[in-house]
């Protein structure tokens, strides 16, 4: 656990980290919906400060929904030049539901976690892996969360980030992904070997 923060910040960390992780998961789980975007637009300056860059750029309340839906599809769904944000693809296993996906499912099982029965998202989707971290954090299993982060999400996040940075036409997803990476780096630092 990062010991560099001041203590009041650390207290805030403990209780709100799961929610923060879920917020990040929500940004990547599916296209941003209007309520979320309205909030982001309303608190744009705050977000810019938080993320270190303005995630919205020229986007307004009128055009953000559509523009981001197109961008999400372009980066993560298809048809060309996209990278599904799932571990097995980004790690180069060349298929959906690869060995990594199985390893993730096994990790979930050992932790008493499983996909919801109505959930069609892949277990190794970035949103699911973030949700896993959130569930572990909110049940005080920070060490297991760190374990999961290093075994899985942190291994492929750089590859996903490189793709998003290279191929995004808007600032939104690079900004959030960079923020995500920074958060994880802070929360689950690499221990020197």
């Amino acid at each position, binding site marked *: 656990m990062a010991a*560099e923060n*001041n203590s009041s*910040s650390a207290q805030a*960390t403990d209780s*709100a*980290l799961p929610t*923060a992780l*879920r*917020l990040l998961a*929500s940004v990547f*789980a599916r*296209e941003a919906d209007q*309520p979320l975007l309205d*909030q*982001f637009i309303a*608190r744009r300056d705050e977000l810019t400060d938080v993320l*270190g860059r303005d995630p919205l750029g020229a986007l307004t309340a009128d055009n953000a929904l*559509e523009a981001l*839906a*197109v961008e999400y*599809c*372009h980066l993560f*769904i298809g*048809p060309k*030049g*996209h*990278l599904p944000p799932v571990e097995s693809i*980004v790690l*180069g296993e*060349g*298929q*959906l*539901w690869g060995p990594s996906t199985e390893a993730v499912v*096994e990790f979930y*099982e*050992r*932790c*008493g*976690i*499983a*996909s*919801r029965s109505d959930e069609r998202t*892949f277990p190794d989707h970035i949103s699911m892996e973030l*949700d*896993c971290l959130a*569930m572990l954090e909110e049940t005080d299993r920070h060490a297991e969360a760190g374990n999961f982060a290093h075994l899985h999400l*942190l291994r492929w996040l*750089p*590859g996903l*980030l490189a*793709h998003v940075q*290279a191929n995004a036409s808007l600032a939104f997803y690079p900004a959030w992904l*960079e923020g995500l*990476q*920074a*958060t994880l*780096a*802070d929360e689950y*630092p690499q221990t*020197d070997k």
Partner: protein
Amino acid sequence: MTKDTKITNPAGNKHDEDVGRRVAVKAGLLAAVGIGSGALFHGLTSVARADKAPRSTSGPKTQGQADPDIGELARADVDGYAGRTGEKRVGVPTTCMQCIAACGVIGYREKGRIVKIEGNPHCPNNRGMICAKGQAGVNQVYDPDRLLYPLVRTGKRGEGKWKRLSMKDALDLLAFGGEIAGRKVDGLKTIYESDKPQEFMFHYGRSRIKNAMNHFQKTAFGSGTQGNHTSICETAKWLGNELTMGKHYDVNDAAYSKYILIFGANVLEAHTSHSYIAQRVIEAKAARAKIVTFDVRLSNTAAKSDEWVPVLPGTDLAIILAMTNVLLNETVNGKVLYDEAFITKWSNVTIEELKAHYARYTPEWGESESGVPADTIKRLAIEYGSNKPSSIITYRGFVGHYNGAQAEWASKTLDALAGNFNVKGGITTKLGGKCKDGYNDKAAKDHADLTRKAVKFKISDGDDLHMPTHHSCQWIHEMIAEGSHGRPKIYMTYVYNGAYTTGDCQRNREILCNEEYIPFIVAVDVAMSETAACADLILPDATYLERWAMESAASYAQKKFVQIRQPVVKPLGESMDMQDIFIQLARRIGGGINTLHPYDTAEKYVRTCVELQTADNAKSGKMFYDSNDQPLKSDPWEYFKRYGVLLQGNKPSYNTHAKAVSAEGKTVDAKTGVVWDPHKAHVSDTDVASKGYTGSKNAYKGYVGQQIDGKTYAGFKPDKFNKSGRFEIRSGFMPSAAEKVMADIKDFLTPEEAPWVAEHLKSGLPSWVPVPEHRKRTDKQLVMISFKVNVQIHSRSQNCKWLQEVYHTNPAWLNPATARKMLGKGVKEGDLIRIKSEMPELPWRKGKGSTSVSEITARVHLTEAIHPDAIAVSYHCGHWAYGRYASGNPVEVEGGNTGAEPAGENIWWQEGNKAAKDPTQWSEVAGVHPNWIIPNTPARVSGQFRSNDTIVSIAKA
């Protein structure tokens, strides 16, 4: 917040240099949490911790069957086995759909993932063996580019800009209409409730859900505007079957043949029944049958044959006619080679008539047309006629020409003359199993008042064709563009990739992308095909390994059976079986169509089919048998799910035409001897009296049998038109084609030929028709043909990485002597060449006979294994969509992660090769598609796509 603390940066993000900002990000995000995003993502849930089952080092001894010819160990079976890691694999029998052969397979699921496919030993056709394509089926499920979510376009059609919709919103859009890229479109409900239901068009490619599809579209919705894909491959062949033996398929009982002639059919690499006809041809070979293959190339089938006879494309018909002449005139040891008894009793000609008609088709004449030496024609015909049972296998190399239907008609005639029909080791009419249909036999009957009589726009049959009994799908785009027969408002494609699989691809795309022609295009598929790329709305289909169906294939075991298709794994992402999409649409449209869809799932429908058939068996005395040919003792549905098949016959059946049938209560047509039920065919009594069987519309639907010499037999059952139950060699349906055909070909005939060719066309007997444009081919031109290879199917397997690895480019096969002549003496293997279409225009197609793009580039493969006047380009390659493996368009990311499997140094797209920007140009990773320069102009008689007729010139690029 401290700004000077060192924190290691495992991500190495070069943008994130301000160490303190990281802390701020976290803290800031915590504040941002107050943003009140109430519904934060929650994809996981707590469950009881599972104790990890101890890994076994070996699995249970399987109960499978051994095949004594190959060893004492058992074949993998439905009980499953343990994989390399010791994990148990559950076996789920199902039916392959990598091609149309529909082999019985077993999908093996390990830890929730399908990992292996084997042949199902219980399936009488393929008996536990499958081909490379079947083995690669797992690649379809986990293809990284697989369509998993509905998409709606946001830019212009074909621009490639999409956004995702939920399945609910996508189905709402299709059912109720809405807005697409700023334009309003009507939905299905509006069309259903209008007086023009035919404005809903459904165009299917590889659909194995015919009953569900016809029920939804025709019976319930009332639209008959349907497209298929048959003419891309073999509509000419089916017409040839229908003129003579009746309903397709023809089945070569090869395992027991003593002599097999193969014309333009590559059974060891392809064919409608690929795996299981290939198995049986090899069995014949092992039993010392002689196999002779006529082909433009030394295909792998030709390579395993005893003789390869090179053929000039489109001249197979001449060889067949000449061989028939030989069979009629030669004797061996004083015995004739033809089966006079069969011709006399079952056909509608006499030997004398045939001898007179075939007199001019001498082996010498055959040589003059085909280049095959007269002696060879004569020798092979005599061998074929004196080593019985024999048969002729034909396919697309034989029929994919202007004269394809005529060739098939002549070939079936030759087999009949030789006495090969319906005998063991000969050629038989198809036996296919069937269960009662839960839709049209039950749901429609329960609510007959809600069913509709389907009305259609006449756009599927080309224009001014003679008898396109299986339609002319490659001309549908032109018919829509021309518009005088109507245009669909909603054009829905289902696993149909017409933009790519037909010719003149540029023109296809132009028409599809024109929003004025078709307001709303919906594509249902597993991959972003070239056609889906031109759509407005895309629905992700479930792969064949994730869904249900009642399956049936032509039985090469000569006994009927049905096969199950059932999910090995649940559909990935939001993909949905088309049958379930139909149900969801019916629910939304409401009214009659909703009531007519009583099953909530496709599983329920398939189960109902089995239950209905079980009830019918009890009434009719028919039975189900198990895979050991024993009467089935257990519950049929449970047996079906466990073993994958239900047999409906337990011994091989031959001579089916000679089976006695009852004429009781039926009408006997005096003129033809056909015994039929006019009421079943909806023919009025007045028409029966005035028009008789032959003249009454769709009378064939009431066919019962054929009366010959006072007895009624099953005969050769007609299909699509009112052929009698005889094996018709003389056709009453062909003389009326003479005028159209002569109009096409007269400018290409010599003055000596024209009169007798015209006379023969009117005779109603199989006769010579050249591929007209080939008569004008100069010695600077070649005929371009297309072909298949063993690891690919036409267009749907190139997303399978294991197959694509073996074959991903399609160099043009060229004879080295030809290459030196046309490209210069320095020509080398792999040189880049230009292939230019120079197809003369037929008068009938003036202005519409050529292609928008006339030239492609390709690398050349110099090989002695091809006729010197031909150039062969397989049509598997040259995708410009269909995902990264097919098109060679991986994601380019710094650090080299392409999103596809990188592995070591042999990955084809990592050799620095890129997909071509212009898909008409050769790509080192994806080859080039020949269809750009193949015209869509249908063959006049059948509507066949002429994939093997294009005249081209070549030059160094």
